[in-house]
């Protein structure tokens, strides 16, 4: 199936009230964020998208592909499933070594050159992790950050899905700005569930969730894009300190004021 757009028609929130956002549509290259407090239904929304909800989930939403609903008994060839969902899982349960798992997944997904795909996947993942993933390691032995990095890389490169849903990628201690930067090179639809203002403002628009319901849709305006840039710099300060601390250095007030000066200079 050639996917041009994916749309969501609103259903109802936890109390049964109809959703205020009645519909939205995404086209290839769009990046959006879903924001709101814990428990407000962000994950449920991306689960609905992943399941091609057809008014048959508790939210009663309808998902449209190229403007059409997907019949309930329609099953995608799993090798060509157009949606990849990176859930909040930070550990694998598969008792296989990383290399073998990726090899089978590449085979399932029908890539012509599995070895090349596995190489690319690991290279992508290792740019996001602290310590590099070793192919002979068991999947279950990977750390939370390594697991999440591998899941993202696998979905983008081996899965090659046109639509990628990412649930709170900031949680596992991976390099999230780097992740966004790498992801933007691919012409796909990205949906981020996030608590991170930087990711939210780097998106084309954001959906605000409340009590299980899509409450509001806000398009990122030019001023917000500038703010996103500033938030990126603050992010970098945090990352710089993280690196210093990881390197065993002692932190001084001087380091802090130097970082703050850099922030002012670039304003």
């Amino acid at each position, binding site marked *: 199936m050639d996917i041009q757009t994916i749309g969501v028609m609103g259903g109802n929130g936890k109390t049964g009230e109809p959703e205020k956002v009645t519909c939205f549509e995404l086209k290839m290259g769009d990046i959006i964020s879903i924001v709101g407090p814990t428990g407000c239904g962000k994950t449920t929304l991306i*689960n609905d998208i*992943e*399941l091609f909800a057809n008014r*048959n*989930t*508790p939210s009663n939403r309808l998902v449209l592909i190229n403007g059409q609903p997907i019949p*309930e*008994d329609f*099953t995608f060839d*799993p090798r060509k*499933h157009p949606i*990849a*969902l*990176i*859930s909040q*899982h930070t550990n*694998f*349960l*598969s*008792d*296989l070594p990383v290399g073998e*798992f990726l090899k*089978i*997944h590449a*085979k*399932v*997904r029908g890539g012509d050159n599995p070895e090349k795909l596995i190489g690319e996947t690991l290279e992508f993942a290792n740019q996001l992790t602290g310590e590099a993933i070793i192919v002979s390691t068991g999947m279950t032995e990977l750390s939370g950050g390594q697991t999440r990095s591998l*899941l993202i890389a*696998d*979905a983008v490169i*081996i*899965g090659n899905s046109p639509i990628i849903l990412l649930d709170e990628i900031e949680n596992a201690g991976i390099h999230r700005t780097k992740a966004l930067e790498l992801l933007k090179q691919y012409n796909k639809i990205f949906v981020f569930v996030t608590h991170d203002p930087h990711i939210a403002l780097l998106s084309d628009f954001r959906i605000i969730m409340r009590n299980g319901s899509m409450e509001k849709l806000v398009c990122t305006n030019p001023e917000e894009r500038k703010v996103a840039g500033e938030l990126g710099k603050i992010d970098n300060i945090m990352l710089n300190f993280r690196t210093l601390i990881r390197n065993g250095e002692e932190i001084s007030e001087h380091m802090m004021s130097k970082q703050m000066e850099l922030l002012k200079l670039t304003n």
Partner: protein
Amino acid sequence: MKLIIFAGPPTCGKTTVIRQVIRRMLKKGYKPAYLKIDVLYADEDKIIREEFDIPARKLYSGELCPDHCNVVVMDEAVEWAEKVGSDFLFVETAGLCLRCSPYIENSLGVVVLEATSGMNLPYKIGPMLTLADIAVITKIDLISQAEREVFRYRVIEAAKDITVVESNALYGIGIDPIVKHIERSSEIEQPMFLRGNPPVGTCTICVGKKEIGAKNHFGVLRTMEHDLFYIGE
């Protein structure tokens, strides 16, 4: 009468899947009955009777394997379901060693597997999977999508022609395709026959021999060097 036999390892979600299926069958106006076969303890009959007010029974196999018990009693069970006016009999069997196949010719065999059970499970359980019509993979929300795809691949590799349905039965997700297969399944024919042979045709242990070692037994023997992937042929 249509006979739907559910098998699968303990706690894999058989009862949860069956409850979701029965809920939908009742909405469509069918009259299901339910039988649970277990070794020592089961309360699923009570749960199902109270939830749906349908004929539901349980049977303890005691010293027998529940799948063996299934073979011995199924004619009576079908008679009972007919007598209480049902058109579908759902049988849930606990299994024991889980290498056996409880499915009967012209019944619909459904094996329920947990997505979390490890990548080698499809190769380990043999005829319970290879002779089933449908494999329902439950608890899909607990693993990543990549793992789901690899697990599904391993299931199909072990059982080439099986229909795989992925389900999160707690939330009723993935149940409708199972119901469709159940509706399309064939009527049971008398006399009934098992679809495959059990892994041990003649069991010397069953008849009271306690000595260890192949030299002390007869019938179907295995040695450590034996290499065989048992599919119940």
